[in-house]
């Protein structure tokens, strides 16, 4: 499998995205002509997931589309500079989901204060200004998950070259070629660009015959139940006082397992690339910018 670089994934009109991670089930997107509206592009992603409008006009004509795993201010500026007016991301550019004061009971005042502080913050206002000035439309795309299959899982498996290696069952577990935990860590570094945000638990020499893939954030209950049937988990992010303890305890219990956490953004990157391919197939004439997000974390050497 070819290692991906940022350059491989920056594409513009007339170019074809060439990335091995995009190998997978062909998406039957019939090319469409004319200038699409933002909502037309969003609908082209229906096979991969659902797109929710976060900002802008869904009926706006699209000058170009930017697909971004991490919709940071810097990434939005790059998208604007590249002539894109539609942003598609699996994340919100507004830092998460603020608490709803109406649903916060005794903490309503605190939730309202936090929401106001966010609205008044320089970063939020800068993003809003950029969106308004350049008439950006932003959609958040969530992967489609049906019957244990998840388009973001399939994309991540494809990134590792494991697309055909799914083990039958309720959980997204894949059979890798002969692999140790250390080799899986190295693979996450090479294929996903994980650096300072890359962490793992377990014996580096642990031999893995099955890996549970949970891109994004691994929820404690379902992930623990899936991990029971796998040698290791590869995920983006997780709460450290729940399934982290399960994996940490596994060796002492005599059933050693491994965990590799790449950071949420990087684990979602292959899904973003799948979305880019779908847009490209549906609108081959539209300018497309797929911005590969770098590891947002670094680690200070001792």
């Amino acid at each position, binding site marked *: 499998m070819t290692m991906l670089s940022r350059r491989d994934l920056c594409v513009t009109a007339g170019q074809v995205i060439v990335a091995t991670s995009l190998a997978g089930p062909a998406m039957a997107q019939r090319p469409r002509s004319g200038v699409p509206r933002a909502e037309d592009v969003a609908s082209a992603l229906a096979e991969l997931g659902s797109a929710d409008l976060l900002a802008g006009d869904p009926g706006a004509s699209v000058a170009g589309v930017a697909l971004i795993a991490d919709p940071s*201010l810097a990434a939005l500026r790059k998208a604007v500079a590249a002539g894109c007016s539609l942003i598609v991301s699996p994340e919100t550019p507004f830092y*998460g989901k603020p608490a709803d004061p109406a649903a916060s009971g005794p903490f309503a005042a605190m*939730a309202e204060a936090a929401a106001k502080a966010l609205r008044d913050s320089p970063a939020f206002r800068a993003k809003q200004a950029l969106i308004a000035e350049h008439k950006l439309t932003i959609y958040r795309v969530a992967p489609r998950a049906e019957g244990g299959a998840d388009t973001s899982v399939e994309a991540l498996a494809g990134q590792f070259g494991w697309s055909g290696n799914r083990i039958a069952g309720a959980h997204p577990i894949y059979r890798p070629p002969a692999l140790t935990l250390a080799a899986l860590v190295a693979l996450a570094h090479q294929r996903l660009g994980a650096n300072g945000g890359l962490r793992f638990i377990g014996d580096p020499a642990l031999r893995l015959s099955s890996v549970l893939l949970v891109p994004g954030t691994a929820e404690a209950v379902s992930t623990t139940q899936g991990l029971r049937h796998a040698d290791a988990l590869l995920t*983006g992010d997780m709460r450290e*006082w729940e399934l982290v303890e399960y994996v940490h305890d596994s060796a002492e219990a005599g059933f050693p397992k491994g965990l590799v956490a790449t950071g949420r953004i990087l684990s979602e990157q292959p899904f973003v690339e799948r979305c880019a391919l779908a847009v490209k197939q549906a609108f081959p004439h539209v300018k497309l910018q797929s911005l590969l997000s770098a590891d947002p974390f670094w680690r200070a050497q001792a």
Partner: protein
Amino acid sequence: MTPRELVDLIYRKAAAEDTPPAPAPSRRDTFKMGDPDAQITGIATTGMSTFRVLRRAAAEGRNFIITHEDTWFRDNDIVDFLGDDPIYLAKKAFIERNKLIIWRNHDLAHRMRPDPLFAGQLRTLGWTADRIEPEPRMPIVTLPEPMTLRALARYAAARTGVKSHRVTGDPDMIVRKVAIGVGYAFPSLLAVPDVDAIVGGESAEGSNGTIPTMDQSAFAADMTTLGKKRGIVFLGHMGTEDSPMSLVAEWLRGFVRDIPIAFLPAGEPFHPPLAGSVDTVPAANRR
């Protein structure tokens, strides 16, 4: 003394030290395993009742474990999702075989003033808080000397012994004022706009769109892009709430006589980064 009697004494002692009453009975701070009416042979405090901590406690003859975090891989410690999971069953059998008793001290500890987790983390980091904001828990520290974010990360990692820390922000930014977090209690850069950096445990990345979240790392990155540089050093959950449980052991020794009390560190669950597989040099202009 039995665990039940000791827990009752702990609550009375905390109340006598002006700990606010709980708004509702804690669902976290309960006995997880064992007979609360057995006699205590020894006490171990820890950040997390991992299997390794339990083995050490049993080997040292300490049958009562006071843990800050959960035992059964889930915040509420409800085990219905585990069924006949072999890891769960092995840990459970070990606890039963060694007649260990486990009680969680999470919500009470965080209600105390000062909160021993924050106080302990400040002690580990060797800093004194200028103020607490927002009240009643989050300490703000003016560093004795300004330092770069890179130097701050090295300092915090060295003081806590955390090898798998993560950092976001410009490594060369100058940090003068720091907000301290522990565990998942993470300061918000929105609430303390005058701080340059956070030294905390863990904080949610992104959002699944269901639970209220704030991706502090993403916010710090955008502030940095705007020239209003902010940095975050993530020490991990056990990098911030394990060693502070030594304060709880010290506090217990003040009113529990004739029972040996020790802090048993859970330690960092993550393996140290492997040489050669991870580039630890921060990329310039990452964002």
